[in-house]
Protein backbone atom coordinates (compact mmCIF):
# COMPACT_ATOMS: atom_id res chain seq x y z
CA UNK A 1 0.00 0.00 0.00
CA UNK A 2 2.88 2.39 -0.69
CA UNK A 3 2.24 5.77 -2.19
CA UNK A 4 3.53 6.51 -5.62
CA UNK A 5 6.71 8.46 -5.39
CA UNK A 6 6.29 11.98 -6.60
CA UNK A 7 9.07 14.17 -7.81
CA UNK A 8 8.02 17.31 -5.98
CA UNK A 9 8.67 17.01 -2.27
CA UNK A 10 6.47 19.39 -0.34
CA UNK A 11 7.41 20.75 3.05
CA UNK A 12 5.28 19.42 5.90
CA UNK A 13 3.64 22.78 6.53
CA UNK A 14 2.81 23.13 2.83
CA UNK A 15 0.86 19.93 3.22
CA UNK A 16 -0.84 21.34 6.31
CA UNK A 17 -2.02 24.24 4.16
CA UNK A 18 -3.14 21.90 1.38
CA UNK A 19 -4.99 19.78 3.94
CA UNK A 20 -6.79 22.85 5.30
CA UNK A 21 -7.48 24.40 1.91
CA UNK A 22 -11.11 25.46 1.57
CA UNK A 23 -11.09 24.22 -2.01
CA UNK A 24 -10.31 20.71 -0.91
CA UNK A 25 -13.29 18.36 -1.25
CA UNK A 26 -15.23 17.88 1.95
CA UNK A 27 -17.35 14.97 3.09
CA UNK A 28 -20.37 16.08 1.08
CA UNK A 29 -18.40 15.80 -2.14
CA UNK A 30 -16.89 12.46 -1.18
CA UNK A 31 -20.34 11.11 -0.48
CA UNK A 32 -21.87 12.34 -3.70
CA UNK A 33 -18.99 10.92 -5.68
CA UNK A 34 -18.44 7.57 -3.96
CA UNK A 35 -21.73 6.51 -2.38
CA UNK A 36 -25.05 6.07 -4.13
CA UNK A 37 -28.50 6.63 -2.70
CA UNK A 38 -27.04 8.19 0.45
CA UNK A 39 -29.46 8.72 3.31
CA UNK A 40 -28.27 11.12 5.98
CA UNK A 41 -29.16 10.18 9.56
CA UNK A 42 -29.19 12.65 12.42
CA UNK A 43 -29.00 13.02 16.14
CA UNK A 44 -27.48 11.34 19.17
CA UNK A 45 -30.90 10.41 20.63
CA UNK A 46 -29.92 12.08 23.89
CA UNK A 47 -29.53 15.79 23.51
CA UNK A 48 -29.17 17.18 20.04
CA UNK A 49 -28.05 17.03 16.44
CA UNK A 50 -24.42 17.98 15.95
CA UNK A 51 -23.81 18.81 12.32
CA UNK A 52 -20.03 18.79 12.69
CA UNK A 53 -20.31 15.04 12.26
CA UNK A 54 -22.19 13.90 9.17
CA UNK A 55 -23.34 10.33 8.88
CA UNK A 56 -25.66 8.01 7.08
CA UNK A 57 -26.11 4.96 4.88
CA UNK A 58 -25.34 4.58 1.19
CA UNK A 59 -24.23 2.07 -1.40
CA UNK A 60 -20.56 1.66 -2.15
CA UNK A 61 -20.25 -0.18 -5.45
CA UNK A 62 -23.61 -1.76 -4.83
CA UNK A 63 -23.23 -2.77 -1.19
CA UNK A 64 -24.67 -0.84 1.74
CA UNK A 65 -22.16 0.88 4.02
CA UNK A 66 -22.35 3.39 6.85
CA UNK A 67 -20.41 6.57 6.18
CA UNK A 68 -19.45 8.92 9.00
CA UNK A 69 -17.13 11.88 8.97
CA UNK A 70 -16.34 15.38 10.08
CA UNK A 71 -18.01 18.19 8.18
CA UNK A 72 -16.25 21.55 8.20
CA UNK A 73 -18.51 23.22 5.65
CA UNK A 74 -17.64 25.07 2.47
CA UNK A 75 -18.58 28.68 3.20
CA UNK A 76 -18.96 30.74 6.33
CA UNK A 77 -22.65 29.99 6.66
CA UNK A 78 -22.00 26.27 6.44
CA UNK A 79 -18.92 26.56 8.65
CA UNK A 80 -21.06 28.08 11.36
CA UNK A 81 -23.90 25.61 11.02
CA UNK A 82 -21.54 22.67 11.40
CA UNK A 83 -19.22 24.34 13.88
CA UNK A 84 -16.20 24.15 11.56
CA UNK A 85 -16.15 20.37 11.86
CA UNK A 86 -15.34 20.46 15.55
CA UNK A 87 -17.62 17.97 17.29
CA UNK A 88 -19.11 18.18 20.72
CA UNK A 89 -20.08 15.04 22.63
CA UNK A 90 -23.34 14.84 20.70
CA UNK A 91 -21.43 14.45 17.45
CA UNK A 92 -19.32 11.64 18.86
CA UNK A 93 -22.40 9.96 20.30
CA UNK A 94 -24.17 10.22 16.98
CA UNK A 95 -21.23 8.57 15.27
CA UNK A 96 -21.19 5.78 17.84
CA UNK A 97 -24.92 5.26 17.40
CA UNK A 98 -24.49 4.92 13.65
CA UNK A 99 -21.56 2.55 14.08
CA UNK A 100 -23.50 0.25 16.39
CA UNK A 101 -26.34 0.36 13.90
CA UNK A 102 -23.93 -0.63 11.13
CA UNK A 103 -22.69 -3.51 13.25
CA UNK A 104 -26.25 -4.69 13.84
CA UNK A 105 -27.00 -4.75 10.13
CA UNK A 106 -23.61 -6.10 9.05
CA UNK A 107 -22.60 -3.00 7.15
CA UNK A 108 -18.97 -1.91 6.93
CA UNK A 109 -18.21 1.51 8.41
CA UNK A 110 -16.27 4.04 6.35
CA UNK A 111 -15.09 7.11 8.25
CA UNK A 112 -13.71 10.30 6.73
CA UNK A 113 -11.52 12.37 9.07
CA UNK A 114 -11.15 16.10 8.64
CA UNK A 115 -11.15 18.19 11.78
CA UNK A 116 -9.01 20.63 13.67
CA UNK A 117 -10.15 18.86 16.84
CA UNK A 118 -13.00 18.33 19.25
CA UNK A 119 -14.74 21.57 20.14
CA UNK A 120 -13.21 23.23 23.20
CA UNK A 121 -16.31 24.88 24.59
CA UNK A 122 -18.18 25.11 27.86
CA UNK A 123 -21.23 23.25 26.64
CA UNK A 124 -19.11 20.45 25.18
CA UNK A 125 -17.26 20.07 28.47
CA UNK A 126 -20.47 20.19 30.48
CA UNK A 127 -22.05 17.45 28.40
CA UNK A 128 -19.26 14.92 28.70
CA UNK A 129 -16.80 15.54 25.90
CA UNK A 130 -14.16 13.29 27.47
CA UNK A 131 -16.49 10.37 28.02
CA UNK A 132 -17.97 10.66 24.54
CA UNK A 133 -14.52 10.48 22.93
CA UNK A 134 -13.36 7.70 25.25
CA UNK A 135 -16.42 5.54 24.60
CA UNK A 136 -15.98 5.98 20.85
CA UNK A 137 -12.38 4.84 21.09
CA UNK A 138 -13.33 1.80 23.11
CA UNK A 139 -16.36 0.79 21.05
CA UNK A 140 -14.72 1.35 17.67
CA UNK A 141 -11.94 -0.92 18.88
CA UNK A 142 -14.35 -3.82 19.21
CA UNK A 143 -16.95 -3.21 16.54
CA UNK A 144 -17.85 -6.51 14.91
CA UNK A 145 -17.95 -5.14 11.41
CA UNK A 146 -15.23 -3.85 9.06
CA UNK A 147 -14.06 -0.30 9.77
CA UNK A 148 -12.06 1.70 7.24
CA UNK A 149 -10.88 5.20 8.15
CA UNK A 150 -9.54 7.76 5.72
CA UNK A 151 -7.88 10.98 6.80
CA UNK A 152 -8.95 13.25 3.95
CA UNK A 153 -7.71 16.58 5.27
CA UNK A 154 -6.73 17.60 8.76
CA UNK A 155 -6.71 14.83 11.34
CA UNK A 156 -6.13 16.62 14.57
CA UNK A 157 -6.23 15.43 18.17
CA UNK A 158 -8.72 13.22 19.95
CA UNK A 159 -11.50 14.72 17.88
CA UNK A 160 -10.06 12.98 14.82
CA UNK A 161 -9.01 9.75 16.52
CA UNK A 162 -12.51 9.35 17.95
CA UNK A 163 -13.60 8.45 14.39
CA UNK A 164 -10.32 6.85 13.46
CA UNK A 165 -9.96 3.49 15.22
CA UNK A 166 -10.14 1.15 12.25
CA UNK A 167 -8.99 -2.07 10.63
CA UNK A 168 -7.43 -0.02 7.86
CA UNK A 169 -6.39 3.59 8.29
CA UNK A 170 -5.60 5.47 5.10
CA UNK A 171 -4.33 8.97 4.61
CA UNK A 172 -4.57 11.04 1.49
CA UNK A 173 -1.11 11.99 0.37
CA UNK A 174 -1.48 15.61 1.48
CA UNK A 175 -3.54 14.94 4.56
CA UNK A 176 -1.95 15.46 7.97
CA UNK A 177 -2.56 13.63 11.24
CA UNK A 178 -1.28 14.90 14.56
CA UNK A 179 -1.80 15.11 18.29
CA UNK A 180 -2.40 18.85 17.95
CA UNK A 181 -1.90 21.55 15.34
CA UNK A 182 1.66 22.60 14.52
CA UNK A 183 0.72 26.07 15.78
CA UNK A 184 -0.36 24.61 19.12
CA UNK A 185 2.68 22.36 19.29
CA UNK A 186 5.05 25.29 18.70
CA UNK A 187 3.29 27.51 21.18
CA UNK A 188 3.25 24.88 23.91
CA UNK A 189 6.71 23.38 23.47
CA UNK A 190 8.57 26.46 22.29
CA UNK A 191 6.29 29.25 23.48
CA UNK A 192 6.27 30.57 19.93
CA UNK A 193 3.36 29.77 17.60
CA UNK A 194 5.35 31.43 14.82
CA UNK A 195 7.56 28.36 14.59
CA UNK A 196 4.68 26.36 13.08
CA UNK A 197 6.63 25.36 9.92
CA UNK A 198 9.44 23.97 12.03
CA UNK A 199 6.91 22.23 14.27
CA UNK A 200 5.24 20.61 11.26
CA UNK A 201 8.61 19.26 10.11
CA UNK A 202 9.38 17.92 13.57
CA UNK A 203 6.03 16.36 14.36
CA UNK A 204 6.04 13.65 11.69
CA UNK A 205 2.48 14.41 10.73
CA UNK A 206 2.54 13.75 6.99
CA UNK A 207 1.09 10.65 5.38
CA UNK A 208 4.35 9.11 4.30
CA UNK A 209 6.08 9.69 7.62
CA UNK A 210 3.18 8.11 9.47
CA UNK A 211 3.17 5.15 7.11
CA UNK A 212 6.87 4.71 7.87
CA UNK A 213 6.11 4.92 11.57
CA UNK A 214 3.49 2.22 11.26
CA UNK A 215 0.71 4.45 12.57
CA UNK A 216 -1.36 4.35 9.36
CA UNK A 217 -1.81 1.51 6.91
CA UNK A 218 -1.73 3.20 3.54
CA UNK A 219 -1.34 6.41 1.59
CA UNK A 220 -3.76 7.39 -1.17
CA UNK A 221 -2.01 9.27 -3.98
CA UNK A 222 -3.32 12.69 -4.93
CA UNK A 223 -3.12 14.48 -8.24
CA UNK A 224 -0.31 17.02 -8.67
CA UNK A 225 -1.09 20.06 -6.53
CA UNK A 226 -3.53 18.17 -4.33
CA UNK A 227 -6.91 16.50 -4.72
CA UNK A 228 -8.49 19.96 -4.98
CA UNK A 229 -6.86 20.35 -8.40
CA UNK A 230 -8.60 17.31 -9.85
CA UNK A 231 -11.20 15.93 -7.45
CA UNK A 232 -12.56 13.34 -9.88
CA UNK A 233 -9.15 11.78 -10.37
CA UNK A 234 -8.39 11.90 -6.65
CA UNK A 235 -11.73 10.36 -5.71
CA UNK A 236 -11.04 7.40 -7.96
CA UNK A 237 -7.96 6.68 -5.87
CA UNK A 238 -10.04 6.93 -2.71
CA UNK A 239 -12.55 4.53 -4.27
CA UNK A 240 -9.75 2.06 -5.00
CA UNK A 241 -8.50 2.25 -1.42
CA UNK A 242 -11.95 1.58 0.01
CA UNK A 243 -12.53 -1.27 -2.43
CA UNK A 244 -9.18 -2.83 -1.62
CA UNK A 245 -9.77 -2.62 2.14
CA UNK A 246 -13.26 -4.07 1.95
CA UNK A 247 -12.03 -6.92 -0.24
CA UNK A 248 -9.33 -7.68 2.35
CA UNK A 249 -11.79 -7.57 5.23
CA UNK A 250 -14.67 -9.37 3.56
CA UNK A 251 -15.17 -12.88 4.77
CA UNK A 252 -13.53 -12.30 8.14
CA UNK A 253 -16.16 -13.01 10.81
CA UNK A 254 -17.17 -10.01 12.94
CA UNK A 255 -15.80 -11.51 16.15
CA UNK A 256 -12.47 -12.13 14.49
CA UNK A 257 -12.35 -8.61 13.06
CA UNK A 258 -12.96 -7.17 16.52
CA UNK A 259 -10.32 -9.40 18.05
CA UNK A 260 -7.74 -8.43 15.44
CA UNK A 261 -8.53 -4.73 15.77
CA UNK A 262 -8.22 -4.96 19.53
CA UNK A 263 -4.83 -6.65 19.16
CA UNK A 264 -3.74 -4.01 16.66
CA UNK A 265 -4.55 -1.19 19.04
CA UNK A 266 -3.15 -2.91 22.11
CA UNK A 267 0.19 -2.86 20.34
CA UNK A 268 0.06 0.27 18.22
CA UNK A 269 2.68 2.99 18.76
CA UNK A 270 4.50 0.81 21.20
CA UNK A 271 7.99 1.32 22.65
CA UNK A 272 8.86 -2.24 21.78
CA UNK A 273 7.78 -1.84 18.15
CA UNK A 274 10.48 -2.37 15.52
CA UNK A 275 12.64 0.70 15.12
CA UNK A 276 11.36 2.19 18.35
CA UNK A 277 13.79 0.71 20.82
CA UNK A 278 15.26 3.27 23.09
CA UNK A 279 18.25 5.02 21.57
Amino acid at each position, binding site marked *: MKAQTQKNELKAYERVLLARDKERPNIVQYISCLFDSFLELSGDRIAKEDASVLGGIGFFEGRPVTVIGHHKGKDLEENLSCNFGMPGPEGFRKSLRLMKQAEKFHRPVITLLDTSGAYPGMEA*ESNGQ*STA*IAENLLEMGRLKTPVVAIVTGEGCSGGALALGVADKVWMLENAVYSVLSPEGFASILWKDAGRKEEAAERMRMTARELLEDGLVDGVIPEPEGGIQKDPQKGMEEVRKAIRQSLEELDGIPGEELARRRQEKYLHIASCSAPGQEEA
Partner: protein
Amino acid sequence: MAELFEERKKTFFNFRSFRREKAKKAEGLPKPGDEKEEVACKACHKVFGRGEWKENLYVCPSCGFHMPISGKIRMGITLDEGSFQELYPDVKGGDPIHFPGYPEKTGKAREKTGLSDSLYGGLGTIDSFPVLAAVLDSTFFMGSMGEAVGDKFVLLVEEAIKRHLPLLVFASSGGARMQEGLFSLMQMAKTAAAIGKFRESGGLYLVVFTNPTTGGVSASFASLGDIALAEPGALIGFAGPRVIRQTIGEELPEGFQRSQFQLEHGQIDKIVERKDMKGVLSQVLRLHGNVYEGTDTKE
Protein backbone atom coordinates in the same frame (compact mmCIF):
# COMPACT_ATOMS: atom_id res chain seq x y z
CA MET B 1 -0.79 21.12 29.37
CA ALA B 2 0.60 24.60 28.78
CA GLU B 3 -1.88 26.30 31.06
CA LEU B 4 -1.17 23.72 33.69
CA PHE B 5 2.50 24.48 33.41
CA GLU B 6 1.82 28.21 33.57
CA GLU B 7 -0.45 27.77 36.54
CA ARG B 8 2.16 25.75 38.37
CA LYS B 9 4.89 28.19 37.51
CA LYS B 10 2.78 31.07 38.71
CA THR B 11 1.90 29.42 41.98
CA PHE B 12 5.48 28.46 42.45
CA PHE B 13 6.65 32.04 42.05
CA ASN B 14 3.78 33.28 44.18
CA PHE B 15 4.67 31.33 47.19
CA ARG B 16 8.38 31.61 46.59
CA SER B 17 8.02 35.31 47.09
CA PHE B 18 5.70 34.61 50.00
CA ARG B 19 8.31 32.54 51.80
CA ARG B 20 11.54 33.53 50.24
CA GLU B 21 13.86 31.48 52.46
CA LYS B 22 13.64 27.85 51.54
CA ALA B 23 10.02 27.03 50.85
CA LYS B 24 9.83 23.96 48.64
CA LYS B 25 7.59 23.30 45.68
CA ALA B 26 4.51 21.84 47.24
CA GLU B 27 4.41 18.53 45.36
CA GLY B 28 7.97 17.66 46.35
CA LEU B 29 8.46 14.43 48.20
CA PRO B 30 9.07 14.53 51.91
CA LYS B 31 12.60 13.64 52.81
CA PRO B 32 13.57 12.08 56.09
CA GLY B 33 14.92 14.48 58.65
CA ASP B 34 13.31 17.63 57.35
CA GLU B 35 9.85 17.20 58.81
CA LYS B 36 10.03 20.71 60.26
CA GLU B 37 10.74 22.27 56.91
CA GLU B 38 7.91 24.55 55.98
CA VAL B 39 5.78 24.21 52.87
CA ALA B 40 3.13 26.66 51.78
CA CYS B 41 -0.33 25.66 50.59
CA LYS B 42 -0.74 26.42 46.91
CA ALA B 43 -4.29 27.59 47.44
CA CYS B 44 -4.35 29.62 50.65
CA HIS B 45 -0.58 30.14 50.98
CA LYS B 46 -0.61 29.25 54.69
CA VAL B 47 2.55 27.53 55.78
CA PHE B 48 2.83 24.20 57.58
CA GLY B 49 5.69 21.87 58.47
CA ARG B 50 6.23 18.84 56.29
CA GLY B 51 5.35 16.61 59.21
CA GLU B 52 1.98 18.26 59.51
CA TRP B 53 1.31 17.96 55.77
CA LYS B 54 2.20 14.31 55.90
CA GLU B 55 0.00 13.63 58.90
CA ASN B 56 -2.86 15.33 57.08
CA LEU B 57 -2.29 13.22 53.94
CA TYR B 58 -1.03 16.29 52.10
CA VAL B 59 -4.34 18.07 52.42
CA CYS B 60 -4.12 21.65 53.65
CA PRO B 61 -5.14 21.76 57.32
CA SER B 62 -6.49 25.23 56.78
CA CYS B 63 -8.38 25.27 53.47
CA GLY B 64 -8.65 21.60 52.52
CA PHE B 65 -6.67 21.96 49.30
CA HIS B 66 -5.63 18.52 48.06
CA MET B 67 -1.97 18.77 47.16
CA PRO B 68 -0.81 16.63 44.22
CA ILE B 69 1.13 13.66 45.56
CA SER B 70 3.51 11.17 44.04
CA GLY B 71 2.52 7.65 43.10
CA LYS B 72 4.50 6.21 46.00
CA ILE B 73 2.73 8.39 48.55
CA ARG B 74 -0.62 7.56 46.92
CA MET B 75 0.00 3.84 47.21
CA GLY B 76 1.18 4.35 50.77
CA ILE B 77 -2.01 6.06 51.89
CA THR B 78 -4.40 3.92 49.84
CA LEU B 79 -3.16 0.36 50.17
CA ASP B 80 -2.69 -1.75 53.27
CA GLU B 81 0.70 -1.18 54.80
CA GLY B 82 3.41 -3.23 53.16
CA SER B 83 1.02 -4.78 50.64
CA PHE B 84 2.23 -2.94 47.55
CA GLN B 85 4.28 -4.92 45.10
CA GLU B 86 5.33 -2.94 42.06
CA LEU B 87 4.93 -4.46 38.60
CA TYR B 88 6.77 -3.61 35.40
CA PRO B 89 8.99 -0.92 36.96
CA ASP B 90 11.24 -0.78 33.90
CA VAL B 91 8.88 0.08 31.05
CA LYS B 92 10.62 2.99 29.37
CA GLY B 93 9.56 4.94 26.35
CA GLY B 94 11.90 5.83 23.54
CA ASP B 95 12.04 8.92 21.40
CA PRO B 96 9.70 7.94 18.59
CA ILE B 97 9.77 11.19 16.62
CA HIS B 98 13.35 12.05 17.57
CA PHE B 99 12.34 15.25 19.24
CA PRO B 100 15.35 17.38 20.18
CA GLY B 101 16.09 17.36 23.87
CA TYR B 102 13.41 14.80 24.74
CA PRO B 103 15.69 11.91 25.73
CA GLU B 104 17.65 14.28 27.96
CA LYS B 105 14.45 15.53 29.59
CA THR B 106 13.10 12.04 30.24
CA GLY B 107 16.52 11.04 31.53
CA LYS B 108 16.47 13.87 34.03
CA ALA B 109 12.90 13.11 35.06
CA ARG B 110 13.84 9.48 35.66
CA GLU B 111 16.77 10.53 37.77
CA LYS B 112 14.70 13.03 39.75
CA THR B 113 11.72 10.77 40.41
CA GLY B 114 13.21 7.29 40.37
CA LEU B 115 10.41 6.30 37.99
CA SER B 116 10.82 4.92 34.48
CA ASP B 117 7.86 6.98 33.28
CA SER B 118 4.69 8.50 34.67
CA LEU B 119 2.59 5.37 35.21
CA TYR B 120 3.32 3.55 38.43
CA GLY B 121 1.48 0.44 39.47
CA GLY B 122 1.32 -3.00 40.95
CA LEU B 123 -0.46 -5.36 43.27
CA GLY B 124 -1.76 -4.54 46.70
CA THR B 125 -4.67 -4.87 49.06
CA ILE B 126 -7.25 -2.47 50.45
CA ASP B 127 -8.61 -3.75 53.75
CA SER B 128 -7.26 -7.13 52.64
CA PHE B 129 -9.15 -6.96 49.34
CA PRO B 130 -6.66 -7.63 46.51
CA VAL B 131 -6.48 -5.04 43.72
CA LEU B 132 -4.29 -4.03 40.87
CA ALA B 133 -3.58 -0.35 41.48
CA ALA B 134 -2.00 2.21 39.18
CA VAL B 135 -1.24 5.89 39.55
CA LEU B 136 -0.33 8.45 36.97
CA ASP B 137 2.41 10.31 38.76
CA SER B 138 2.26 14.02 38.03
CA THR B 139 5.81 14.51 39.24
CA PHE B 140 6.96 12.81 36.02
CA PHE B 141 6.23 14.99 32.96
CA MET B 142 2.98 16.13 34.54
CA GLY B 143 1.59 12.64 34.24
CA SER B 144 1.44 12.98 30.48
CA MET B 145 0.79 9.92 28.33
CA GLY B 146 3.28 8.63 25.83
CA GLU B 147 4.14 5.17 24.59
CA ALA B 148 5.55 4.02 27.93
CA VAL B 149 2.31 4.87 29.74
CA GLY B 150 0.22 3.18 27.06
CA ASP B 151 2.34 0.04 26.99
CA LYS B 152 2.51 -0.26 30.74
CA PHE B 153 -1.22 0.36 31.06
CA VAL B 154 -1.86 -2.58 28.73
CA LEU B 155 0.52 -4.79 30.74
CA LEU B 156 -1.16 -3.85 34.01
CA VAL B 157 -4.66 -4.40 32.64
CA GLU B 158 -3.65 -7.78 31.25
CA GLU B 159 -2.19 -8.64 34.63
CA ALA B 160 -5.48 -7.70 36.29
CA ILE B 161 -7.39 -9.88 33.83
CA LYS B 162 -5.02 -12.80 34.32
CA ARG B 163 -5.17 -12.56 38.11
CA HIS B 164 -8.88 -11.75 38.17
CA LEU B 165 -8.38 -8.54 40.12
CA PRO B 166 -10.27 -5.26 40.24
CA LEU B 167 -8.42 -2.43 38.53
CA LEU B 168 -7.98 0.84 40.41
CA VAL B 169 -6.52 3.84 38.63
CA PHE B 170 -5.69 7.24 40.09
CA ALA B 171 -5.61 9.63 37.17
CA SER B 172 -3.69 12.87 37.08
CA SER B 173 -2.40 14.12 33.78
CA GLY B 174 -1.76 17.13 31.63
CA GLY B 175 -2.75 15.00 28.61
CA ALA B 176 -0.79 13.61 25.72
CA ARG B 177 3.03 13.59 25.73
CA MET B 178 3.46 15.99 22.84
CA GLN B 179 7.13 15.24 22.38
CA GLU B 180 6.02 11.87 21.01
CA GLY B 181 3.83 13.31 18.24
CA LEU B 182 1.07 11.07 16.91
CA PHE B 183 2.51 8.19 18.93
CA SER B 184 1.11 9.90 22.02
CA LEU B 185 -2.35 10.32 20.48
CA MET B 186 -2.47 6.63 19.62
CA GLN B 187 -2.10 5.77 23.30
CA MET B 188 -5.68 6.94 23.74
CA ALA B 189 -6.88 4.21 21.39
CA LYS B 190 -4.51 1.74 23.01
CA THR B 191 -5.62 2.32 26.59
CA ALA B 192 -9.28 2.38 25.53
CA ALA B 193 -8.74 -0.97 23.78
CA ALA B 194 -7.23 -2.32 26.99
CA ILE B 195 -10.30 -1.25 28.95
CA GLY B 196 -12.47 -2.79 26.24
CA LYS B 197 -10.73 -6.09 26.86
CA PHE B 198 -11.02 -5.62 30.62
CA ARG B 199 -14.78 -4.94 30.32
CA GLU B 200 -15.19 -8.16 28.38
CA SER B 201 -13.42 -10.02 31.18
CA GLY B 202 -16.11 -8.80 33.58
CA GLY B 203 -13.67 -6.99 35.85
CA LEU B 204 -14.41 -3.99 38.05
CA TYR B 205 -12.64 -0.81 36.97
CA LEU B 206 -12.45 2.05 39.45
CA VAL B 207 -11.15 5.47 38.51
CA VAL B 208 -10.24 8.25 40.88
CA PHE B 209 -9.79 11.63 39.24
CA THR B 210 -7.19 13.75 40.95
CA ASN B 211 -6.04 17.24 40.12
CA PRO B 212 -5.69 17.74 37.19
CA THR B 213 -6.93 15.15 34.69
CA THR B 214 -7.19 16.66 31.24
CA GLY B 215 -6.66 16.03 27.54
CA GLY B 216 -5.89 12.62 26.16
CA VAL B 217 -5.99 10.85 29.50
CA SER B 218 -9.35 12.33 30.43
CA ALA B 219 -10.70 11.39 26.99
CA SER B 220 -9.50 7.79 27.13
CA PHE B 221 -9.05 5.31 29.97
CA ALA B 222 -9.81 7.76 32.78
CA SER B 223 -13.38 8.28 31.57
CA LEU B 224 -14.18 4.61 31.12
CA GLY B 225 -14.50 3.50 34.74
CA ASP B 226 -17.40 1.46 36.07
CA ILE B 227 -17.26 3.80 39.01
CA ALA B 228 -15.68 7.24 38.89
CA LEU B 229 -14.63 9.05 42.05
CA ALA B 230 -12.84 12.37 42.33
CA GLU B 231 -10.87 14.22 44.94
CA PRO B 232 -12.33 17.62 45.86
CA GLY B 233 -11.32 20.48 43.63
CA ALA B 234 -9.81 18.33 40.88
CA LEU B 235 -9.79 19.88 37.43
CA ILE B 236 -11.31 17.33 35.05
CA GLY B 237 -11.91 17.93 31.37
CA PHE B 238 -10.86 17.37 27.80
CA ALA B 239 -9.97 20.91 26.78
CA GLY B 240 -8.03 23.00 29.25
CA PRO B 241 -9.54 26.20 30.67
CA ARG B 242 -7.11 28.44 28.78
CA VAL B 243 -8.04 26.95 25.41
CA ILE B 244 -11.75 27.25 26.17
CA ARG B 245 -11.30 30.84 27.31
CA GLN B 246 -9.53 31.64 24.06
CA THR B 247 -12.19 29.92 21.98
CA ILE B 248 -15.25 31.50 23.53
CA GLY B 249 -13.57 34.78 24.38
CA GLU B 250 -14.98 35.13 27.86
CA GLU B 251 -14.07 34.31 31.42
CA LEU B 252 -15.09 30.90 32.72
CA PRO B 253 -17.37 30.61 35.72
CA GLU B 254 -15.83 29.89 39.11
CA GLY B 255 -15.38 26.17 39.64
CA PHE B 256 -15.78 25.29 35.97
CA GLN B 257 -14.55 21.73 35.26
CA ARG B 258 -13.80 21.12 38.93
CA SER B 259 -15.03 17.98 40.71
CA GLN B 260 -18.21 19.60 42.00
CA PHE B 261 -19.04 20.82 38.51
CA GLN B 262 -18.44 17.36 37.05
CA LEU B 263 -20.61 15.79 39.73
CA GLU B 264 -23.43 18.22 38.95
CA HIS B 265 -23.04 17.50 35.24
CA GLY B 266 -23.30 13.77 35.70
CA GLN B 267 -19.70 12.94 34.85
CA ILE B 268 -18.60 11.36 38.11
CA ASP B 269 -20.27 9.26 40.80
CA LYS B 270 -18.93 10.83 43.95
CA ILE B 271 -16.45 13.30 45.40
CA VAL B 272 -14.35 11.75 48.12
CA GLU B 273 -11.90 13.52 50.40
CA ARG B 274 -8.46 11.99 50.60
CA LYS B 275 -8.89 10.95 54.20
CA ASP B 276 -12.03 9.00 53.28
CA MET B 277 -10.77 7.52 50.02
CA LYS B 278 -9.50 4.24 51.33
CA GLY B 279 -12.75 3.63 53.19
CA VAL B 280 -14.89 4.35 50.14
CA LEU B 281 -12.72 2.18 47.92
CA SER B 282 -12.95 -0.58 50.47
CA GLN B 283 -16.75 -0.23 50.50
CA VAL B 284 -16.91 -0.39 46.69
CA LEU B 285 -14.72 -3.49 46.68
CA ARG B 286 -16.83 -5.22 49.33
CA LEU B 287 -19.95 -4.40 47.32
CA HIS B 288 -18.36 -6.33 44.45
CA GLY B 289 -17.27 -9.22 46.64
CA ASN B 290 -19.55 -11.57 44.71
CA VAL B 291 -17.50 -10.91 41.56
CA TYR B 292 -14.23 -11.71 43.27
CA GLU B 293 -14.94 -14.67 45.51
CA GLY B 294 -11.87 -16.83 45.79
CA THR B 295 -9.44 -14.37 44.24
CA ASP B 296 -5.96 -14.37 45.66
CA THR B 297 -3.04 -12.19 44.64
CA LYS B 298 -0.49 -14.71 45.79
CA GLU B 299 1.19 -16.54 42.95
